[in-house]
């Protein structure tokens, strides 16, 4: 690009010196780029953190990465549609390296009633030890304990359901549900724990009870309704789903995004959102640089004229202008990234405390304290956006310069 390092250094020297000469203007544009980049990174990291949290909650408390049902269960849930070959499934999953944890559950629609209120609920017969390893349910415990008591008569209730039934720890809860013999079976339970996952399906309807107790209550001899699997890496979801489908043709295997399409939409919306914001950053950077460079070129027509007169090729002047643009963009990018990175890291560790808005947030299934995430490709994409801006924004000003015929500017004194 440069015939020798001599002229390369010359370009750099003139570009840098020209920018320093108009310090305030340069600083303002750099600041503009930095601020918009900072805002973008912050919003992106926070928003992505937000929906990743939602997805994580749903996976840990609800479906896992993959859920296995008996054939036809998802379309028409029925307590009689059970997975009977549990050991075979468990063995298959235990051998697979991709699997991090597995739990099995018995599910049934039920009515939860107290003397004053009754609500539709979902009874989930679970094994607490496995669930804790699987989804770290203890993190979601708000009151009481995650236990079913010595006689397995305890229940852990979702916080929304508890609120609607106006019950709390120690209260009696009567569950009625249809058992496998088509009769309505009822059981009295004592509330031992209240759980808040921000997965609304769980919070507003779930009653967790001991799995063996659930089997007894619902007349199930052997088998479970659902097996949930959490993987080490989300990328393994599709291949493992296929492997399971092939091996167990009498069962159905679903991914979380197939079960919760609305959550997947958050992610898709996010991608659209981030394109728009990168576009905004690009526009801000491009316009800022364009404005500054254009003005600075028009100011320096005579200067460039002299340089051209004494033998500078136009190409060198182009390189100087481009380099100036690049310096501005790069400084803007660096400072914006630094600010953004520090802010994101702070909120990654400490979280953004929005407990003042927790009621509104609850309605959407969002945690009151939001943690942001940082991903390297935020910075890569931002870099590309700014780079593109620096290159594109000098095209027009350079054309203006050429048309202005700098040599004439000095010769027509």
């Amino acid at each position, binding site marked *: 690009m440069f015939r020798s390092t001599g002229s390369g250094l010359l370009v750099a020297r003139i570009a840098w010196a020209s920018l320093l000469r108009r310090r305030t203007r340069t600083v303002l544009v750099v600041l503009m780029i930095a601020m918009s980049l900072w805002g973008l990174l912050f919003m992106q990291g926070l928003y992505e953190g937000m929906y990743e949290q939602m997805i994580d909650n749903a996976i840990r408390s609800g479906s896992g990465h993959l859920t296995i049902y008996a054939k036809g269960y998802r379309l028409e849930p029925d307590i009689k549609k059970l997975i009977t070959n549990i050991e075979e499934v468990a063995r298959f999953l235990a051998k697979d390296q991709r699997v991090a944890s597995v739990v099995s559950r018995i599910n049934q629609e*039920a009515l939860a*009633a107290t003397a*004053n209120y009754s609500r539709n609920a979902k009874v989930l017969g679970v094994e607490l030890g496995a669930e804790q390893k699987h989804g770290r349910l203890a993190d979601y415990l708000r009151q009481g304990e995650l236990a079913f008591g010595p006689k397995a008569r305890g229940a852990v209730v979702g916080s929304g359901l508890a609120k609607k039934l106006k019950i709390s720890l120690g209260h009696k809860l*009567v569950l009625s549900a249809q058992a496998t013999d088509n*009769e309505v*079976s009822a059981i*009295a339970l004592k509330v031992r724990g209240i759980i808040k996952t921000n997965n609304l399906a769980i919070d507003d309807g779930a009653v967790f009870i001991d799995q063996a107790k659930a089997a007894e209550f619902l007349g199930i001899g052997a088998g479970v309704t659902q097996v949930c699997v959490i993987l080490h890496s989300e990328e393994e979801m599709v291949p493992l789903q296929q492997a399971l489908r092939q091996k167990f043709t009498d069962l159905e295997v679903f991914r979380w995004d197939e079960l919760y399409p609305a959550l997947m939409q958050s992610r898709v919306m996010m991608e659209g959102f981030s394109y728009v914001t990168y576009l905004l950053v690009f526009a801000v950077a491009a316009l800022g640089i364009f404005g500054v460079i254009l003005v600075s070129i028009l100011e320096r027509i005579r200067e460039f004229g002299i340089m051209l007169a004494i033998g500078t090729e136009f190409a060198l002047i182009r390189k100087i202008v481009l380099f100036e643009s690049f310096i501005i963009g790069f400084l803007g990018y660096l400072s914006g990234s630094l600010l953004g990175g520090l802010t994101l890291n702070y909120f990654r560790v400490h979280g953004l405390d929005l407990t003042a808005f927790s009621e509104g947030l609850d309605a959407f299934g969002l945690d009151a304290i939001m943690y942001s995430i940082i991903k390297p490709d935020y910075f890569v994409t931002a870099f590309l956006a700014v780079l593109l801006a620096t290159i594109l924004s000098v095209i027009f000003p350079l054309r203006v310069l050429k048309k202005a015929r700098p040599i004439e500017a000095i010769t027509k004194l």
Partner: protein
Amino acid sequence: MRLFMVIMLLFLLPPQAGAAITAAEIIKKVEDNLNGETARLAIAMTVKTSRTQRTVRLESFSIGTDKSFIRIAYPKKDEGITFLKVDKQMWQYVPRIEKIIKIPASMMQQSWMGSDFSNDDLIKESSISKDYDANLLGEDGSGFSLELIPHPEAPVVWGKIIMGVSRSSFLPTEVDYFDEEGVLVRTLYYREVQRFAGRLYPSLWVMEPKTPDKAGHQTIVRVEAAEFDQPIDPEYFTKRALKRFSK
């Protein structure tokens, strides 16, 4: 609630005089008096809220506490609706849409025909003696006061029930239902004991919710006619009966 238990009537046994009677024995007598082998009743049920009032007439057939069949006779828009309860399952037939609906667990707590009784009340198999421990709280010339505490594992929502029993008829006079916190949720009054074919039976039942949100509500059941321990066609207790006897 024992609307179904009520349609069985045994001939009233005179109370045992003299020997101190235990709470458990009292309860047993009450249950015997409210149940019978078979029963056939004609009932007018009036549901009152603070603003409206409506009356439904029905006829019911039952065998013990296990099987019962109800047909709504009035008003015209509800005429022909039938209910069947066999073991712990309940079905309803609505002629207007010509559909038989099985009442699922989730609808159990919903009110039956708009009254202050729930579907669950109609179905509840739990006889008092099975699910509750009875204590005698006190007695006087006219009757006994019993406290019924549910067994810890009994699937009943009540925290406790207080029942007043008449000494002369061994029929309940007033039953108070309390929630776990001891707050009174509703009261069922049995009044106007009459003789039906030689058997003493309360002909007026009033269910009054006591919670503030249901102030002014009342369900009044009047037994207009009753026949006990006569044979009843078993056909009534099949699913076919829902449609067949709807007309």
